[in-house]
């Protein structure tokens, strides 16, 4: 019945790992050919792969795990999906209903453990409710602000036969988040846009989650108004990096021009972003002179951190369409002259060239490695995942994203070990595309067992590891904050990545000289199969520009200046 319900929901791929309490479902999977099951090496890999699948397709990712440890191993991924609003349906096995609460073998209180980190979860105790619950789960995961859900299914319920209910006949209940924005507020938004002198679009993952139409509408409006646009880490690709209004990413490691524009703007148009602390810096110094428009589908995001002057609760595509229509109907007005002056100011900030890095000697600069990767993959059908740390920020800074759903990174939770399994999930969804995981060696080791999955399913994922033998971001913070006492932030006893690749049955490439870099990258791209690319880079490079914790947007560190004491004690506790 579970498999039937999944087929009914249009599921094509399930990522999972079998165990005692899900054997009946695995038996069903064995006896059919419609749903493909991808066997991972660890349950955490399954859920990150499902996240990669979901983010690159816009469809919900499905995970199947057993009870107890199977379920607890997906908890990190569930929290990750909750923070980044990714639609994920986890199906977990459970001990039989009559044994629940008896501390049975591999029993865990899965619904209890996952209650605070799912949008909703269910323990199905009656077989007759099973199909209905699964359909409801898909509805909740995808409706409104997407997120993870979990359905816990005891083994006796899996074995029993019950009445199957088809998807269309199931009442999805009262859960129906609002999609259309308030007309009065949309009118105020348009009025502000017509008169703004120093406007900036600040967009986030909500644009991506809303679907391709939202990105299209956003592009149309940005082009028509000529307003500058910046984006959060989650929103990269909604507006093309090659677009003329693009300022680059904002926030802690965002560009100089983007952060100054946010600080000095008079009208801030937040579309589908949530004023995360990595974006705002010090709250009471955040964009002091601006009137803020905030479009979000989740009412609890509005006025949570930063007060919105014009709050619009609704789906990005719906709101943008309504607002754009109204703006056109009112004569496409924009204060061209003032916006022109604003752009002159922005060009001045741009001229600081905040992403410039020192030209390397023979040692490869990590920024240079990412910049070369960008240059050599330009124009390709390319999907990028990352792990978490310095390399993630460099990827966000130096890679250009032209389309939505091409950039998969763990933003809210910052989960090391995300990138490799996510890249496999992306590749399963897009078998012919180029999928690269830009990684750091420490993060990558956290879920390296999934290389076995990549090899088994012939997923030609490219693991581009910037190897500095350090936990680079931790090291950077220790340098700036903790008197250069590098407590446990280096990677000792690292494996030989080339031999490791051979052991997994894939290709390994090592590059430690800038002169060889381009050829090595070309070799990686040309190889038909998974590659582990060990890129030995400068060990003490820091990620700049940077807004130190507790500082305002206009108070950035640009480069390797004397960085001692830049973060005060109050900033030090902010992480």
């Amino acid at each position, binding site marked *: 019945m579970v498999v039937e319900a999944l087929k009914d929901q249009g599921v094509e791929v399930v990522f999972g790992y079998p165990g005692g309490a899900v054997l009946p479902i695995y038996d069903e999977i064995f006896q059919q050919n419609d749903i493909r099951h991808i066997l991972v090496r660890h349950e955490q890999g399954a859920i990150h792969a499902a996240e990669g699948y979901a983010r690159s397709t816009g469809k919900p990712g499905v995970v199947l795990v057993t009870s107890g440890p199977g379920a607890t191993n997906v908890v990190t991924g569930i929290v990750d999906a909750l923070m980044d609003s990714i639609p994920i349906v986890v199906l977990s096995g459970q001990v039989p209903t009559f044994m629940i609460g008896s501390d049975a073998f591999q029993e865990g209180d899965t619904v209890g453990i996952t209650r605070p980190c799912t949008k909703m979860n269910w323990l199905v105790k009656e077989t007759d409710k099973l199909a209905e619950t699964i359909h409801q789960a898909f509805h909740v995961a995808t409706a409104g602000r997407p997120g993870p859900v979990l359905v816990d299914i005891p083994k006796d319920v899996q074995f029993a036969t019950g009445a199957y209910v088809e998807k269309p006949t199931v009442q999805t209940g009262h859960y129906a988040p609002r999609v259309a924005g308030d007309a009065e507020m949309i009118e105020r938004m348009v009025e502000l846009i017509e008169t703004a002198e120093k406007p900036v679009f600040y967009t986030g993952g909500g644009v991506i989650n809303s679907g391709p139409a939202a990105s299209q509408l956003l592009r149309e409006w940005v082009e028509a108004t000529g307003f500058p646009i910046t984006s959060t880490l989650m929103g990269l690709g909604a507006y093309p990096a090659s677009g003329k209004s693009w300022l680059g990413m904002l926030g802690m490691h965002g560009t100089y021009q983007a952060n100054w524009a946010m600080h000095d703007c008079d009208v801030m148009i937040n579309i589908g972003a949530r004023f995360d602390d990595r974006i705002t810096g010090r709250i009471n110094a955040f964009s002091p002179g601006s009137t803020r428009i905030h479009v979000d589908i989740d009412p609890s995001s509005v*006025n949570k951190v930063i*007060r919105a002057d014009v709050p619009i609760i609704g789906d990005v595509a719906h709101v943008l369409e309504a607002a754009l229509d109204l703006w056109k109907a009112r004569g496409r007005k924009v204060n061209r002259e003032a916006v022109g002056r604003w752009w002159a100011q922005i060009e001045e900030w741009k001229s600081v060239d905040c992403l410039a890095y020192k030209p390397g000697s023979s040692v490869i600069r990590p920024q240079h490695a990412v910049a070369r990767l960008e240059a050599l993959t330009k124009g390709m059908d390319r999907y990028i995942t990352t792990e978490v740390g310095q390399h993630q920020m460099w990827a966000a800074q130096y890679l250009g994203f032209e389309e939505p759903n091409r950039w998969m990174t763990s933003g809210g939770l910052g989960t090391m070990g995300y990138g490799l399994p996510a890249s496999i999930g992306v590749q399963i969804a897009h078998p012919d595309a180029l999928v690269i995981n830009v990684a750091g060696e420490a993060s990558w080791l956290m879920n390296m067992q999934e290389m076995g999955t990549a090899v088994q399913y012939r997923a030609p994922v490219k693991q581009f590891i910037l190897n500095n033998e350090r936990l680079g971001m931790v090291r950077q913070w220790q340098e700036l904050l903790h008197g250069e006492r590098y407590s446990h932030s280096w990677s000792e006893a690292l494996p030989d990545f080339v031999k490791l690749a051979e052991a997994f049955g894939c290709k390994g490439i090592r590059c430690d000289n800038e002169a060889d870099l381009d050829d090595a990258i070309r070799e990686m791209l040309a190889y038909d199969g998974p590659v582990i690319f060990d890129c030995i880079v400068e060990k003490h490079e820091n990620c700049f520009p940077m807004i130190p914790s507790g500082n305002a947007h206009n108070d950035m560190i640009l480069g390797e200046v004397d960085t001692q004491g830049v973060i005060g004690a109050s900033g030090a506790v902010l992480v």
Partner: protein
Amino acid sequence: MSPLQIKKGSSKHSAYDLRDPNAEVIETHTLTVIVDNESGVLARVIGLFSARGYNIDSLTVAEVDHLGHRSRITVVTSGTPQVIVQIKAQLERMVIVHEVHDLTVEGPSVQRELALFKVRGQGEHRIEALRLAEIFRANVVDSTLESFVFEMTGTPEKVDAFAELMRPLGLVEVARTGVAALARGA
């Protein structure tokens, strides 16, 4: 900063907050939450409060509609105006929640709490306790030669006041149900 001049509450049309977010005024609000009567619902609601660091001053829950499968949770909470608005938004987006009403903002409401007081004493104290109980319309539901158990229904303030008066007269234990509340009018 002077106290707020604007009427408490937020606009019904949006999440627009009319109040000064910088005012560190702690307000107490009574929220009514209509939820599906399912296992784990209470844990979900309480979990939200503890996970996000919100206060619960009192909480009551019971099924109110057996056929419709609905329970009513009445929670008294306190926080800055911004926090109160946020609590409401966080509750409203939960899948099991049907309705959330902030009775403190949405007009007049009736709030009642049931309390039991055990008072031990002799002589003058005992007589005084009985006299006060009469004034407060508390009933004697248990009696021994040296103790009473009083039962009283009223607003939390009335319950507090009665408890204060009983304390010097030999109050040993109090049991309170927490607030149940309904909006006034049809």
